[in-house]
């Protein structure tokens, strides 16, 4: 009989759909070859494990990959999409969060021991990378597996400037990509996420699957592991929509801060997370950017938005920003301490609802662009420093500024020059 490793595709039977040990939800764009490679890799997991793969765009005529389970390999089968369609009203990050929540619900329905969400595409597809997200759930008893992508100079700037260093300072763990988007989640954690979301308030401060996953695991002292992966593909920047990006991504982060205030106010220092695999380097990166438009945006914001910023930022910060806006292009550098104070003050204003939250975060756009321009200046080819060292300095500044945040969080009406 011919050994045919690529068997005829089989429709899953009823009892296969009822349960699985691992649910892999593939949300990113993968062709059938990529899916097949991924499934082959999953079969190398421990014997007798049943892995259910859910992929929206799976082609019926594509490979397998429903091989029979053997003593040496796990069985991998496709399941009809168990994921609920996100509400048509939800867009962007909220839509992604709804999808993640439906993955957790599907994993719970399948009584899975863990679920793996693959949402991004690596530039260099290496077969085991998706498997490495799932392995620590079974072999290392991890509750949450986070990715650590190889970083290029200008990748993931919102994460690098605000989300990751703030998570590190608040919760005391050096997380590189707290918002994934690729995750490995244990049953214990996804059940807690489901319970918290279903039992929590409706609308407003509801648990956000994407933004709250890492802070929930950190606050509940669950086991978290990072996995070194390659360089991720990012979608191109839509410059006309920058303010919407900020207004979409930051609210759940700030709402989580409010929800977990009792937890993060206690932490003092940060510690690294256990990591699996060797760091992957992205190779030489000679990309340069034209910072002029960003500096001009910052200067325009400084001229026209003083009235709004004065409701959020103290006079000393406004003074520093005015000084900064007068600097020539080549000397444009925003000190880390200034940026950290700005982010913390905006987080506080978000909590106090000083002004409409949508207006608040959109008015932050020129400040963010100012930081990006300053960061680009710091990484000029002529010299100065690598992105990792630069961002490590920023993270330390976030940690040093935490006492300012705690003080203002507890006593927001106290005199703040």
């Amino acid at each position, binding site marked *: 009989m011919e050994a045919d490793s690529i068997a005829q595709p089989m429709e899953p039977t009823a009892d296969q759909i009822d349960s699985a040990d691992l649910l892999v939800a593939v949300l990113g764009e993968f062709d059938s070859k990529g899916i097949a490679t991924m499934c082959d890799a999953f079969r190398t997991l421990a014997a007798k494990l049943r892995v259910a793969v859910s992929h929206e765009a799976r082609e019926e005529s594509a490979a397998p990959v429903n091989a029979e389970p053997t003593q040496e390999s796990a069985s991998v089968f496709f399941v009809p999409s168990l994921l609920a369609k996100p509400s048509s009203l939800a867009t962007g990050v909220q839509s992604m969060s709804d999808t993640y929540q439906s993955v957790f619900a599907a994993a719970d329905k399948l009584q899975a021991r863990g679920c793996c969400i693959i949402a991004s595409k690596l530039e260099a597809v290496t077969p085991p990378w998706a498997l490495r997200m799932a392995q620590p759930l079974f072999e290392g008893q991890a509750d949450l597996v986070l990715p650590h992508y190889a970083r290029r100079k200008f990748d*993931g700037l919102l994460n690098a400037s605000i989300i990751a260093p703030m998570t590190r300072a608040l919760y005391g763990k050096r997380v590189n990509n707290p918002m994934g988007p690729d995750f490995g989640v244990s049953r214990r954690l996804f059940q807690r996420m489901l319970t918290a979301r279903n039992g929590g308030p409706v609308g407003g401060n509801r648990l956000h699957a994407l933004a709250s996953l890492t802070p929930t695991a950190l606050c509940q002292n669950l086991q978290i592991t990072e996995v070194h992966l390659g360089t991720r593909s990012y979608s191109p920047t839509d410059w006309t929509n920058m*303010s919407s*990006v900020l207004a979409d991504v930051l609210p759940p982060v700030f709402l989580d801060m409010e929800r977990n205030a009792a937890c993060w106010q206690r932490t003092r220092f940060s510690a690294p997370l256990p990591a699996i695999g060797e760091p992957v380097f992205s190779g030489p990166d000679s990309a340069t950017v034209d910072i002029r438009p960003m500096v001009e945006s910052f200067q325009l914001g400084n001229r026209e938005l003083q009235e709004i910023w004065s409701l959020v930022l103290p006079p000393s910060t406004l003074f520093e920003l005015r000084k900064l806006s007068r600097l020539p292009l080549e000397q444009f550098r925003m000190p880390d301490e200034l940026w950290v104070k700005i982010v913390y003050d905006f987080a506080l204003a978000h909590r106090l609802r000083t002004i409409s939250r949508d207006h608040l975060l959109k008015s932050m756009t020129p400040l963010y662009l100012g930081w990006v321009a300053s960061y680009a200046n710091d990484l000029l080819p002529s010299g100065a420093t690598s992105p990792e060292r630069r961002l490590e300095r920023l993270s330390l500044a976030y940690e040093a500024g935490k006492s300012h945040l705690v003080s203002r969080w507890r006593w927001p009406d106290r005199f703040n020059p």
Partner: protein
Amino acid sequence: MWEQVKHALVDSTTRFLTRFASFLPGFAALVVALLVSFVLAWVLASIVRRVLVGVDFDERLERWGYASLAEWSPMNSPTRLVSRSIAVLVILSGFLIGIAAFDFQWTYMFAQSAVAYIPKVLTSLLVLLVGNVLAAFLARSVLIGAVNLNVQYARFLSVGVKWIVIVLAFAMALEHLRIAPGIVELAFGILFGGIVLALSLAVGLNSKDLIAKSVERDVTKATREPVEDPLRHL
């Protein structure tokens, strides 16, 4: 003849005294109504003042962009303005109730039309309040949106939008109060049209060069090879 004069005098004195006597209960009622309304006004004003101080009304108004209201207010305190306005309203209501006690037709009619006018005044005040809040919100939205789109005349646009909404709200309030409706309609049309025309001219004239450069950029972009933007935010 003296008898007739005496008779006429007695008659008119009797009539006067009768009218005065019938006027006295009404007057007493007016005094009582005023006294009660003064006491009620004082109580209500105190309660309102305490509530507004408790919610930091003055600071909140300033944060919402109504700092100018403090300049119109007694002792620069909008809280006092609101509490005193409520007190005046209560006293006025007491006065109207008091004069309605007189058995004079014209006072009754005056009181009736004044009382009928109060809901219109309240509705107009509500329209003005909502209009001002909406104007401030829209002005801020336009300002932030225009700055994020690198529009240099963002503040001008924002002020224009604010005044359009405020003028609209004032016109609606005056229309509701039926104060010279024809003149208000005409004045509003001219003013509103003038503001919109001024904004259009300003935007159009300022954008002339911008549009020319944008078209030129599009033409050269089509012939040039695309350059990938290395910045990735998310």
